[in-house]
């Protein structure tokens, strides 16, 4: 868990709290509306066979998002 900077760097199966969400970009708002907010716990469940997209667990459900989005979600150490 330590050392993970952003969501795309989280090891498989590990969880962390979200520290900061991006403020710009096409989907920054929708990600928050789907529950990714500072303070929420997020778990990296698995990646797709080709490495992208990622599947995370947030607020009790499963969400898939691409690495380019995940890179912008900063996690607490």
């Amino acid at each position: 868990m330590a050392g993970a900077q952003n969501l795309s760097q989280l090891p498989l199966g590990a969880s962390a709290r979200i520290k900061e969400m991006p403020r710009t970009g096409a989907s920054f708002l929708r990600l928050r509306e789907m529950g990714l907010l500072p303070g929420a716990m997020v778990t990296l469940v698995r990646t797709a066979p080709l490495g992208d997209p990622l599947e995370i667990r947030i607020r009790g459900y499963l969400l898939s998002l691409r690495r380019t989005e995940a890179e912008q979600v900063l996690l607490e150490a």
Partner: protein
Amino acid sequence: MPELPPHIALPGRKRPPAAVDRTPVYAIVGNPNCGKSTLFNALTGLKQKIGNYPGVTVEKKIGETYSQHGRPIKVIDLPGAYSLAARSPDEAVTRDVLLGRREDTPQPDRILCIVDASNLERNFYLLHQVLDLGRPVIVVLNMMDLAAAAGLTVHAERLEKALGVPVIPCEAVNGRGLVELKLAMSRVELPLARHRWDVPAAVAPAVAELQAALVANDGRSHLVARAEALLLLTDFDTVRVAGSTQLSGRTNQILQNWQKRWETEGTDWAGTLVGSRYEAIAQICRDIVHQTGVTGPSVSDRIDAYVVHPLWGWLILGSVMTLLFLSIFTLAEYPMNWIDEHVALLGDWVKGAMAPGDLRDLLTDGVISGVGGIITFLPQILILFFFIGLLENTGYMARAAFVVDRLMSFVGLNGKAFIPLLSSHACAIPGIMATRTIEDPKDRLVTILVAPLMSCSARLPVYLLMIAALLPGGAVPVTTKVGLMLLMYALGLGGAFGFAWLFKRTLFKGEPPAMIMELPPYRLPRLKDVALHMFERAFLFLKRAGTFILGISVVLWFLAAYPKNPDPAATPSEQVAYSYAGRTGHALEPVIRPLGFDWRVGIGLITSMAAREVFVSSMAVVFSVDHFEGGKNADITPLRRSLAEAKWPDGRRLFTPLVCLVLMVYYVFAMQCMSTVAVVKRETNSWRWPLFQLAYMTGTAWLICFVLYQAGRALGY
């Protein structure tokens, strides 16, 4: 309905009964995957109508259910939405209808908000926005069985107390809770929500100012104005759709001023609003949802371990897709042949029953074969949508999109484009209809535009004929046949991906939409829902595309049958040459001669507009092959011979190997099938895109064939 002054409609107090004695109109809203359509089907059964919201390619679903007193209640099924801050035309329509912004759909009286009990927090977000509207709301706490299975206890009564609105626990799949729901819906008066949440201080003055502006300039009621103000502030990249009334200039100005101000100050106003909603939600949920059971990896998790596995995942996907493809390709054959036979029987019967003449010909060759042509599509459409319904219902569809997304995004296609493109190898029509599952309109449009490039089954007879004509004498070696066919398929595939990439770069430029997709838990498919969905699609196809296809069939028949050759002993070949089709073929010749085709091939190109496989029987007629029986098991040897002997006026062979190859390539790329045009028009709601598709595909076909033919000639072939 006239809004009552604020001091009467206090939250928590009951509203006085409506002045107008009609049953209220309900709108059903909810997240995707919350069981909304199951509930809608359970409430309305077969009393459903599907239409279109004018100006948008979003479907309007209206149904009727009955109150406990037996009076009809109108129910509008609004498209699933994660938030009223719309990110797609579907969500925009839901937002607009709820806010009363659409002239074609009056604001619904009451709202049924469906919430997935096993996923309460996120589902609550939409509910929270809906409660802002100040309309009577009934909360349906659906999927209670799934919540229980996940070890969650959800206290519906506590939620009802907290919100002040009726909360009905439901298991729509089992029908549990429906009676209580109908009882609640039948109530003459419904309490308004006890809903107050404190807007964060940074944003409060903006909300107040916008609210005042909306009331003053846009004629909104007090509560709706507040809800809309909150939405406007989080609707960062507003999706506007045709048919929704615009905001007044003054209100827009105020909004922009605030947005500019926050940008310079660096305040994350949108995020702040979302955050404070979730805080309010978390507070309520703390009391309502308790994790009681022990949770190990859920069943869904264990299935996913295989389904998304690097090895098994692909195998499973491959098997599912193969099954799908085989079903559309081969299984559909049986009903299709049955239909063909019976259409032919009907035609024969009419021939026997009527006197020979123009009317009879119109009926048999125009109308009956036209209708037969339409009905022939039904088996494939039904099978495809049965499959799609099954895949979506069980939750596998999301996993399939998840697995192939990386591949498809190379060319800018959505993961969900996989199934439409695969199905288009059987027939583009169900494939294009299947693009419905793609939410993003740009992605969907690009998929629709390139789908017909996938070599469909109707092209096969043309390929087979040309391959046979290519090689003089004797039987065609299997390896050559297969090789050339694969080449054609590969060309189509390559063309599709190439154009998808090109379109995404040029016409549909803009930020690629993020792939943010929920992976719902696996569920057993509900066959009733799947069947209903399947029949709906088929019915819509018949209604919308059917008339157009019939019209085109009659027109094409007319072109090939008239004007009649004055010589009564004219052979069919001479008759066709004399007809409009023949004349058009002649007129077309200068354009197609650089490709190596003459006017007789031109006739074939024209008649192919009814269906590509008609090319074969047209060639039989034009090249005077007597008693040619078309169809799958046609003996093309006599036709092959005729083609081999066909010559230009100057004596050169017409069907040289090069020309045969070029003709095949032409069929790979050209857009000919008018039925496809009809369906594209229906699915995109305009003529612009089918005409564009016609132009770009046929233009590309011409260009490639031109280069191929001229290069071939230059090389001495």
